[in-house]
């Protein structure tokens, strides 16, 4: 059986998903304020790195990277409800793209696996 990343369609799937996903996040009042003032080009590259990881693709992230990247957001109040909102938007994005529920679940599980590192606990 091929890997999740291959079943989803690899880098092409990440490219198809990343702008849809970022639009949903920016339109979501629960989490949009964390992105105020950020450089959108830098941010979309980070979103792409995140989706690649959540799709089971090649990445070299460590728990320490995740902690460092989100430390200031946690200080600004980032908590479980915000991680839930991000994963919800990820689920909607994948359904919009016609990804089967089994794979949607696998992606959500991978995204969830970094929750403790993201929240620095």
């Amino acid at each position, binding site marked *: 059986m091929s890997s999740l990343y291959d079943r989803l369609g690899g880098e092409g799937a990440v490219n198809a998903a990343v*702008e849809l996903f*970022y*639009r949903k996040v*920016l*339109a979501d009042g629960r989490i949009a304020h964390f992105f105020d*003032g950020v450089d*959108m*080009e*830098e941010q*979309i*590259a*980070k979103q*792409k*790195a995140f989706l*690649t990881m959540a799709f089971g693709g*090649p*990445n*070299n*992230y460590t728990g320490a*990277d995740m902690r460092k*990247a989100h430390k200031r957001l946690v200080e600004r109040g980032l908590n479980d409800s915000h991680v839930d909102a991000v994963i919800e938007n990820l689920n909607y994005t994948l359904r919009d793209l016609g990804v089967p529920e089994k794979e949607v679940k696998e992606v959500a599980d991978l995204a969830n696996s970094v929750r403790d590192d993201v929240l620095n606990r």
Partner: protein
Amino acid sequence: MTLIRREGRAVDVAPGETVLEALLRVGIDAPHSCRAGNCQSCMHRAIDGAPPPESQSGLTDAQKAMGYFLPCICRPTTPLTILRPDDLGVSLEAVVQAIDSLSDDIVRLRIEAEGFAYRPGQFIELSAGEDLRRHYSLASHPEEDPFLEMHIRLHQDGRMSRHLAETLQPGDKVHVAGPSGSCFYEGVNVDQPMLLIGAGTGLAPIYGVLRDALHKGHRGPIRLYHGARSRKGLYLSDELQALSDARDNVNYRPCAFDPSAPHGGDVAATALEAEQSVSEAAIFLCGGENLVKRLKRELFMRGASLKNIRSDAFTPAR
């Protein structure tokens, strides 16, 4: 072994090793994060030598044309000279040709810089003395003009402004470094609609891009919005109106602040109301940081791809 040079330092890249690994191995604190070619934290620019195409994966056509690449996925086979992305490199001597007034507080500076290669819309660092350096965008065209042209707003207490207004004369020497910036006509299809929005002297790069598009035979519709605080600030309006009248595919929309005009004459609001369908357009945004950020976000939310939005936000001199 492949040799790379960065800030005067030579570093050997071992077979199979990436440029990032080599930099870190010799103790250079190069920024990085994902190490997989996605997050772009480690981006550098090659000014000599060609980085392998796979090391430019995910970058825009403009970035590729300028030699940007990702060190974390770059295994070079030929020597490279590389710069940090914000490093403009060595400066060249140039000679002031003319300083003319474009409006009450905007001047046009033309300088001769022989052999200086650039794309219209990119910016340079102009140095007019020790510790007097500013970034300015280029409105000129390398194949049509024997000079570099900049549009510069004069600020009452600005050091460069006073130098330009009171001291600098034709024949004086200045220095230029660069060019930099990805706000130029690259990766645009000749039939694609183009949306150009500039505020104040943000018209300079927009004007450069417009001229380059026409120079390259652009056929799709081009809509240019220029915003200014008052009608007097709508410089080059005669030239742009004439161009708009002469060309079926060019439309010029000047917007000056005026409480009685729709949207009070605000260029962003005017453009956003008129431009409802942006997903196919090649977009260029130049002006103050707040305006550029607002337009970029709005146009992205309306379906424009970030790859199609090129922008240059001016930040005030410190």
